[in-house]
């Protein structure tokens, strides 16, 4: 049987260019490009590397989002994934991570058997790094987060990974099926290929009914966390520019100032 991999991917606004309306504390979406979340590009790349080695591997990319998240699936298919599934339904809108993982769990149960699941460590918009572990918990499979190196035995069962720690790494062994979250140190994502762009690939859109998810466990209403308020950090007052005839003068001015503030 073909080795089956599921990659969870999220479409996110490019946080390098986003602007927030300081009055309303909401995102100004106009003209902000949507991109494949960085860590998810590494997740897909690792799956593709397995497929490079074992060509009958089957990769399904799954995303929950608005209809335009289709663009993300197109990109992933053009890089070499076999199948893309978008879960899109108003009923799942406004989900927190608990509710998001319930939706993804239901979709993955509908897909059926899989051997390996990759998610990104963290999405650059919500920034929680919670969806991967919560999904693994709900599917009842082991997890390793912060994966920076991946190796799988030829038996397609035994996996060895390096998990990044603050001050080094852990070498961990586990077996499929399992869920791994990926970081940028893991690999360098490839570009889309012409063959991929023009090839025939499968793209599906599922709604809440299709995945038979319990509607009391998804969406804004069901989410245990709620956004109470949102706002922008207060702008810091403009500081002083230190000037002088020589760099030595400037250095002296700085030290006088720091001393005056009692920080040195």
């Amino acid at each position: 049987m073909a080795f089956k991999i599921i990659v969870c991917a999220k479409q996110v606004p490019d946080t390098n260019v986003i602007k927030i309306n300081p009055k309303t504390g909401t995102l100004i979406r106009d003209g902000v490009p949507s991109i494949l979340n960085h860590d998810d590009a590494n997740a897909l790349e690792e799956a593709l590397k397995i497929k490079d080695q074992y060509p009958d591997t089957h990769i399904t990319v799954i995303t929950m989002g608005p209809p335009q998240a289709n663009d993300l699936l197109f990109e992933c298919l053009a890089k070499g994934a076999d199948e893309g599934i978008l879960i899109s339904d108003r009923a799942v809108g406004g989900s927190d991570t608990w509710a998001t993982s319930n939706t993804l769990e239901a979709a993955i149960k509908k897909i059926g058997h899989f051997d390996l699941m990759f998610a990104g460590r963290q999405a650059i918009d919500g920034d929680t790094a919670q969806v991967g572990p919560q999904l693994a918990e709900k599917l009842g499979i082991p997890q390793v987060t912060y994966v920076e190196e991946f190796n799988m035995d030829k038996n397609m069962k035994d996996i060895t990974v390096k998990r990044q720690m603050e001050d080094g790494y852990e070498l961990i062994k586990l077996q499929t099926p399992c869920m791994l979250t990926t970081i940028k140190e893991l690999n360098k994502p490839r570009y889309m290929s012409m063959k991929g762009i023009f090839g025939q690939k499968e793209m599906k859109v599922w709604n809440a009914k299709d995945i038979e998810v319990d509607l009391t466990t998804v969406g804004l209403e069901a989410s245990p966390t709620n956004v109470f308020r949102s706002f922008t950090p207060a702008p810091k007052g403009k500081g002083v520019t230190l000037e002088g005839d020589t760099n030595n003068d400037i250095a002296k001015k700085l030290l006088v100032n720091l001393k005056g503030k009692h920080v040195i």
Partner: protein
Amino acid sequence: TGGDEVVDLSAYKHIWVFAEQREGKLMNVALELIGEGYRLAKEISEDTKVCAVLVGDGVGHLADECYAYGADEVVLIEHPLLKQYTTDAYTKAITDAIEVYKPEIVLYGATHIGRDLAPRIAARCNTGLTADCTRLDVKVSSYIDYANKNTTLDTSTLDPNDTSTGIKQTRPAFGGNLMATIICPRTRPQMSTVRPGVMQKRDKVAGAKGVLTVFKPEIAKDDIHVQIVEIVKSAKEMVSLTDADIICSGGRGLGDASGFELIKKFADKVGGVVGSSRAAVDAGWIDHSHQVGQTGTTVKPKIYFACGISGAIQHLAGMQTSDIIVAINKDADAPMMEMADYAICGDLYKVIPEIIAEWDNAEALYDASTK
């Protein structure tokens, strides 16, 4: 796990702190969280306690340190299978204890372990989890004070006399462009991971005592599905960015790896620690453990020297609450120069040696300037 079960909120009491230890040593963030838990407990009620949850094998001796930093109680969970951290065993042990003792709030450090563990526990408890918090409030009045001082939030819609005791958890999102305050109104415990380095430890009270509760976990080998083969520390010491009073950070403006020799010299002179931007890490000039920012460490030193760092939002997200920011940059318009308390427009290779040369004269220079 239907979402429409109603949870009896009043059955949950006290604040738990996951007292993360590695190799028998408490992580700093554990002590910071005990300090923060202590503060929050007082905001909830006089009889709310802060309780450190110590998990491991042979870690009981750490209880005294928890008490000394403000814990009223310690829940000790020991088992040979908890010697090394595994998601499976720690999730089971802590979730089982939560079900028995029903804490109202559980705080974890947002470390590589905390961020692996907390979402798994929250999912098993079917409760909410707020990620990477940088501010916690119980009282609406203290939330209003914080917001007025530090944010653009219009607080006129908040009632300072509101007596609800749900926790308001504030965190950066969208790479630091937006702050959100998250609540968890219907389920318990309320859980958060908290960024290391942002909360205040309490002063140590040597000899302080508290109440010890021993919880016997039921864990079997079969519960654990991973095998830790090896734990490898990088040759360098763990960079203690979060504890540093002074940080000297270098960025792409250093031009090449050897630039960090100057930054190191600078840090040694001022008694500081070396930090970096991600661009410098990506270039291979310095190890990731030095990186400050959204995907690195959050820091709050007394002085942050940003040398050849432009001030991208993801970098600012990790250092903008530093007491004093000094920027040294060729480009007067770089965002870091706008953010800085003291901006020096110039070549870092010319400016830093002068600061090093004059450092020991600071006192005399200051005295001369005030005469």
